[in-house]
């Protein structure tokens, strides 16, 4: 028995399966890039894990430093493909809504498991899209930690999606052969019209946001992107609790390896300088490419008596917060910079004066600002 309110003849297994294929491609992109982002934070290095190591899946690897725009690409795909998926998910749920009100609701154990996996899938899909969308816009109407919840939510979502695909492949195969003629007289929208409508929604969201992921002239075209400034500040010095006194003439960078020394900003500027055009790419999906000048981390490792160091612990003047410190790998030390200047001028305080880390392809927040200490380990 089904209710007669769901009477649109547009709904069919064929329509659902085609929308399902589109969604599968989009969700595969979102899932792969999402877990890549988790790995890019290198949670196996000290102080980097936000999800505790003992409660995580062992899926980390050495995140590369080349190409420099790698994290901008993966995170740009993650956030924008997530937005594009929203209209397709709405359309797909619309196409199957009569199933929710079928009677009896459960027809045996197999069916119960299938219904449970669908409930998990819809619930986790909504959860992941909603938390991701609001987090990128700095709205936190929830009491849980976003990183933790979005990570475990992703595991629930991935498991439920894979299960759903396995269960539904035979139904999709059958549905492909059942594309029936529609009673056009009753329709206000054709099948092609529905796809065009859904695609228009997806392209609208993409155009509204993608400029912040592309940067440059595209940024101003992204009418509703959270980050439309040319050189965004993720966190101001004031928000981080870094004061002018902390970065004044008394500032010294503590350098530790085999030897422990400290360097003033003038001494850092007197060392050989390197200039590189590198992006800062945020987990929220925005990116900004600037010309950074400073001392290579490999050179500072030599100064600390630890040439070829395999690990670097970076600390910030920022007094509190999980991200006041981060650890970098040997490859990141080899490719990275302790930036002192940006675009030919001293770093602005909000961009990390007196010195900040800039490493190619590193998630934005691990490019620690207001660096107070570097500890190299071999």
């Amino acid at each position, binding site marked *: 028995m089904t209710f007669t*309110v769901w009477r649109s003849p547009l709904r069919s297994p064929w329509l659902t399966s085609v929308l399902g294929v589109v969604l599968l491609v989009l969700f595969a992109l979102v899932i792969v890039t999402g877990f890549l982002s988790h790995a890019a934070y290198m949670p196996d290095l000290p102080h980097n894990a936000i999800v505790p190591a003992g*409660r995580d899946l062992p899926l980390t690897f050495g995140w590369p430093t080349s190409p420099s725009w790698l994290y901008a690409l993966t995170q740009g795909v993650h956030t924008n493909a997530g*937005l594009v998926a*929203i*209209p397709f998910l709405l359309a797909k*749920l*619309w196409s199957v*809504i009569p199933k929710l009100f079928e009677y009896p609701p459960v027809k045996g154990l197999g069916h119960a*498991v299938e219904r*449970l*996996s669908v409930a998990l899938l*819809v*619930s*986790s*899909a*909504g*959860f992941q899209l*909603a*938390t991701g*969308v609001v987090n990128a*816009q*700095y*709205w*936190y*109407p*929830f*009491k*849980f*930690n976003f990183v*933790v*919840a979005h990570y*475990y*939510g992703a*595991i*629930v979502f991935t*498991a*439920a999606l894979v*299960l759903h695909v*396995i269960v539904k492949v035979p139904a999709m195969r059958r549905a492909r052969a059942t594309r029936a003629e529609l009673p056009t007289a009753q329709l*206000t*929208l054709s099948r092609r*019209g529905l796809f065009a*409508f859904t695609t*228009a*929604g997806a392209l*609208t*969201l993409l155009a*509204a946001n993608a400029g912040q992921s592309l940067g440059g002239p595209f940024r101003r075209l992204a*009418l*509703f992107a*959270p980050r439309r*400034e040319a050189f*965004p*500040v*993720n*966190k*101001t010095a*004031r*928000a981080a609790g870094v004061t002018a006194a902390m970065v004044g003439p008394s500032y010294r960078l503590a350098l530790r390896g085999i030897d422990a020394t400290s360097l003033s900003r003038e001494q850092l500027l007197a060392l050989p300088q390197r200039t590189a055009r590198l992006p800062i790419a945020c987990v929220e999906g925005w990116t900004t490419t600037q010309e950074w000048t400073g001392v290579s981390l490999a050179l500072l490792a030599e100064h600390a008596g630890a040439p070829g160091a395999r690990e670097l612990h970076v600390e910030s003047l920022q007094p509190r917060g999980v991200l006041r410190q981060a650890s970098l790998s040997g490859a990141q030390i080899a490719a990275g910079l302790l930036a002192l200047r940006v675009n030919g001028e001293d770093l602005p305080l*909000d961009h990390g004066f007196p010195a900040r880390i800039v490493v190619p392809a590193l998630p934005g927040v691990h490019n620690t600002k207001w660096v107070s200490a570097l500890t190299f380990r071999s």
Partner: protein
Amino acid sequence: MGLRAHLPQLILLPLAGWALLQLLGFRGAGNAALWLAGAVVVHDFLLLPAYSALDAVARRAAGGAINHVRVPAALSLLVLAVFWPSISGASDGAFRRASGISHQGYFTRWLLFSAALFAISGALYLVRRTGRDPAT
């Protein structure tokens, strides 16, 4: 139908269950559970019935011009829903504290965007109607 046929369920459902239990072991567990259940309830029992009802009303009112109302209205509401924190200013406090600047102009841009959609859609309708019926 042996164990092998059910292997995916036997691996994937416990994995999802493990992740749910982990999530519920952190701060705000009750709130996370509320959001997970809320996602289904809000979509299936509020959002979908609400837009279906709105669509039924619009169909009756707009008749043959329904898609010229439906499409711009849906795109406008979609943008409003997805960028609600920025457009409504709900996120402005947290955004200003973090970045030092305001989420400004989003509401105005949404109004202009919506007006442009309806204007284009209306113009297309007039062009089509004139094309169909040269006498008017």
